[in-house]
């Protein structure tokens, strides 16, 4: 997981888009750290679905994207921070 990645980081976004295209769907976890609430979870088949999720996020939230085909998460997930 790359915790330093920012939402505008083109490199991480490219890797996420590549993951969605090559092995859909992807599992998306939206975390709200230090906000006294649990994560929201989504399955995305298309980039546009992920865009819609990200569009609604405010400062402080984090998006973690993993392949559903590798739930052991050996490579770690891809993280975008708002």
């Amino acid at each position, binding site marked *: 997981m790359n915790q330093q990645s920012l939402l505008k980081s083109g490199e991480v976004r490219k890797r996420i888009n590549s993951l969605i295209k090559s092995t859909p769907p992807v599992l998306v976890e939206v975390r709200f750290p230090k906000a006294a*609430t649990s994560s929201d979870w989504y399955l995305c088949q298309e980039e546009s679905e992920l865009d819609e999720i990200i569009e609604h996020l405010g400062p402080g939230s984090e998006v973690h994207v993993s392949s559903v085909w590798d739930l052991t998460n050996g490579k770690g997930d891809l993280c975008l921070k708002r």
Partner: protein
Amino acid sequence: MGRKFPVSELTELIRVVALSKDEFKLSEFMLRKSENGLSLFARVEKPSPAEVIEAVRLMGKRGDLIAVSLKPRDIRNMGLTIVQTPGGTGNEEVNAIHFELRLPFFRRLWIRLRRIPVHEYFNESYSHKLFRAALVLT
């Protein structure tokens, strides 16, 4: 962090949960791998629980959100420690009343020596107790 809020003055703590079929779930009280403690806010008049829910909603949390409350006395009786830490919302007033429920120092040391991850121990030992103790705020 803003003002220090004395833990001894806490009367109630709240957590924002999403309702599913008019119920909230045990998973609302579980830690993720990266977390050391369960995040909660103090219940105070200003900011009110409604303002806390709104701050969480503005972060992007979706669903039918409500606040559930936990009594500090119940939490201490379970053996957990209440620690004030900065909140992560976009509202500074709300962030100033943020707390975490953590394992006491010697318990953390004990489980570390046994190589048990904190989140696994917390989820197995405390999540169901916190779930049972939580009451919906009316």
